[in-house]
């Protein structure tokens, strides 16, 4: 972690949050009380951080339009638009203008 702390602002499911530059997406969300990052594919059960090491594939989010981002292995960025991982990605998506 850097000694100098820069604050970044990002959104999760449309809601605005702040975090410290250098934190992972998962940590930034956790720090803001967001533990549920999405739901499981088959049984639609809540999912979040489990191993925090890029192995368990439980912490998927969509970040800046990219689906299935491992939030524990990616850094939070200023202005990032994050959405929870709710289901299989739709090829036609509103954010793509369809």
């Amino acid at each position, binding site marked *: 972690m850097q000694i100098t702390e820069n604050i970044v602002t990002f959104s999760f499911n449309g809601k605005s949050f702040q975090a410290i530059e250098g934190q992972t997406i998962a940590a930034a969300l956790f720090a803001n009380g967001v533990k549920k990052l999405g739901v*499981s594919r*088959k049984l639609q059960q809540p999912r979040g951080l*489990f*191993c925090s090491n*890029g192995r*368990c*594939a*439980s912490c*998927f989010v969509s970040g800046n339009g990219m689906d*299935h981002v491992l939030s524990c292995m990616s850094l939070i960025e200023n202005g990032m638009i994050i959405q929870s991982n709710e289901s299989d990605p739709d090829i036609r998506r509103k954010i793509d203008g369809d």
Partner: protein
Amino acid sequence: MDKSTIVCRCEEINVDEIETVIKMGATTFDDIKRLTRCGMGPCQAKVCMNLVNRIIHDNTDKPFSDLTPANMRMPLKLTRISALASSDQTITSVTSVFDESLQEVGETNREE
């Protein structure tokens, strides 16, 4: 152990489903994988492998030294197709990554 407990988090396979296929004759992780999809999700058995081997051990008389790890294939981690098909220069390398995977004895090569 509660039979409804999830073992494979990715594909959401529970203890009961795994024990059922063991009763049907599954003896290895790979057998269970092919019958239930356990280990076929995004983590590719990284989390469930030891849990499943423990269940096999508890339901059969196989020692852990006989329960070989789940067969791993490339790519070893989640990789985007765009990263694999990245540039004209590496197109032949891309085919290589999948084609030239080390083969187990008895497995046939993929035809190009």
